[in-house]
């Protein structure tokens, strides 16, 4: 028993050390957002801002279109993720639990589409969307994001579903429910962690996406928050580091909130058994 406690302390220490190393760049970003101009440019690094200033945050918040672009990002990302996840889930269930012709082909397509370099598709996608007047619209971006996130989601969700043994559904079906009903009742809660992990990934990928948003959205009132961020870097003149870091911190917050909301679904305690004895 004692050795177990000692070992645990050892793991904890390692965990904390790794935490520090991993999070350092994020810490650097956030602390810089509070530093004064001189501290930012000084030759020796300033670890903690001793006279924290809120001027950078104020500057970032007051730049034109900040709130508008946050709203745009939220709309685009939440809709894309919701649609993509629901559609992908059903396809993933079909792929893992049913046999049908074309199954292998479909699977290969799901991974194949992801092998296409995004850079190669920018102009063809732009041309198609332009034809339907969906350039410079949020709808156009939503469509692109759904298409980007779907293959990955199907592929990953299938992996999670495969890991779940069949006995459970069989047990449920004995009770008289249909196959699909069995899925919903038994499968869904078990796949929840995987579903959440996948949707977090979809959320973050879409939230941070830059290339397509930049190309497709021209009006500053329609752009997403990542495009808004890029304006801090655009000029040939000095990058306003303080405001850039403050702005970046602000754009990262919704992601953290989203994760906090869904993280309870990812089992943090290994408390559940798979099949009751």
């Amino acid at each position, binding site marked *: 028993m004692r050795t177990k406690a000692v070992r645990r302390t050892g793991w904890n220490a390692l965990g904390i050390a790794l935490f520090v190393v991993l999070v350092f760049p994020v810490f650097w970003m956030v602390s810089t957002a509070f530093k004064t*101009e*001189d501290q930012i*440019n*000084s*030759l020796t690094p300033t670890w903690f801002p001793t006279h924290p200033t809120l001027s950078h945050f104020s500057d970032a918040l007051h730049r034109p279109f900040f709130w508008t672009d946050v709203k745009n990002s939220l709309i685009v990302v939440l809709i894309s993720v919701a*649609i993509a996840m*629901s*559609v992908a889930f*059903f396809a993933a269930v079909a792929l893992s639990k049913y046999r049908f012709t074309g199954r292998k082909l479909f699977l290969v397509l799901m991974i194949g589409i992801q092998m296409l370099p995004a850079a190669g598709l*920018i*102009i063809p996608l*732009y*041309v198609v*969307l*332009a*034809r*339907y*007047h*969906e*350039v*410079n*619209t949020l*709808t156009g971006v939503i*469509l692109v994001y*759904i298409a980007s996130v779907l293959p990955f989601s199907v592929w990953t969700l299938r992996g999670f579903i495969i890991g779940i043994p069949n006995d459970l559904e069989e047990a449920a079906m004995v009770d008289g429910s*249909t196959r*699909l*009903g069995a899925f*919903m009742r038994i499968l869904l809660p078990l796949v929840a962690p995987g579903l959440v992990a996948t949707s977090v990934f979809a959320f973050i990928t879409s939230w941070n996406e830059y290339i397509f948003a*930049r*190309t497709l959205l*021209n*009006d*500053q009132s329609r752009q997403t928050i990542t495009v808004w961020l*890029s*304006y801090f*870097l*655009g*000029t*040939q*003149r*000095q990058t306003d580091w303080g405001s850039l870091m403050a702005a970046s911190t602000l754009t990262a917050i919704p992601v953290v909130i989203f994760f906090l909301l869904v993280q309870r679904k990812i089992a943090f305690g290994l408390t559940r058994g798979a099949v009751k004895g």
Partner: protein
Amino acid sequence: MRTRLFMAALAAVSLGVVAATASAGVQRAQANKLTVWLQVDAQSGWPDLVAAANQQFQQQNPGWTVDVQYQNWSDHLQKFDATLAGSDTPDVIEMGNTEMTKYMAAGAFADLTSSKSQFPNSSHWLAGLAKSGQYGGKVFGVPYYAGSRVITYRADLFKKAGITKPPTSLAQFETDLVKVGKINKAKGFAPLYVGGEDWYTALSFVYDYGGSIATTHGGKWVGSLDSPKSIAGLTAFKKFFDATQPKSTATLDGTSPFPYTVFSQGQTAANYGPAWYTCCTGAKYKGVTAQFVMPSHIKGQPMPGFLGGSDLAVPAPSNAKAQAIQWIADFTSTASEQGLEQKGNIPNATNLLGTSVNERAAARSWFVPQAKHWVDVENGNILKTMLSQILTGKLTVKQAATVASQNIAQTLNES
């Protein structure tokens, strides 16, 4: 029952998506809207001038609105290419003067030759800038503004080293810098901070000695960096660099870190760069920062400075060319150009030039070869590679220049 509900929901969602794609959205381009692409420099530097031009335009064209969309230098060309593919280009676009030729050669812009007289001060346009907007004898770009290169320096440190007036020759400047270096022994301090790969600086030396990058012979480009005069210039640059810079700057190109950042940290006494560097030299040194013209190796003359700048063009697919021309005329009016001059830029016409250090430095200037593929030479980093090879001693001046010359000729002569 629940399954049926699920199926229904699924069907609805997918149909909805298809419908959204198929329905030609009612988002037609607004009639009577002028779309203008300017760089973010205008947004942060002179938004009042933009607003004034918009107002003037709207008075002349009632019922029209102007939509100014600000672009970043790093990706505005890729965005422009996308709009060209889709035929919904802006009506006015700001282009860097080195970016013009490639697009003019591809037929991207409307011919403005017959409208030239509509543009204010067009008969006095700065020669260098005007040339960047011409191709095949026709006018495609209207000069917007320019900038030359000057020395931004710490007057207090120079004074401390006993220097009372700006140097009038390169040799004098080198001596001065060495003096400043002697009284500042801080680790990593450089009297002048110049990125070794900053070809805008290095090539100024080349042009100062009468050399050039490339010339045309019988319709083909020939690299001339390996000509005797160019080599003399490069050798002079190496000598100057070795005397005034720490070894570590040999492979830096002046964008990381920015020279003015080094200045604001107190690690250098001078920068050679655009005049607007004074914006960012640090609050600490605001009172002691001044500028003078970089001297040539010929006593009494300024060293030729790279004339950077922007032109305004009208993309060929635009449906509002007349209005676009009018807007450009409003934005490059005498009043507007004078406003640009007050913000530290060089205006687009000789009759508007003042006597700031920036404008005096522009008396002698150089520009890159006006070739369709010049942009590819820049993007291929041929010049930067040459400079770092010379400054790190990997190759002799003659070897590096010969290789670069051949590469440049090859790139420029591509079909």
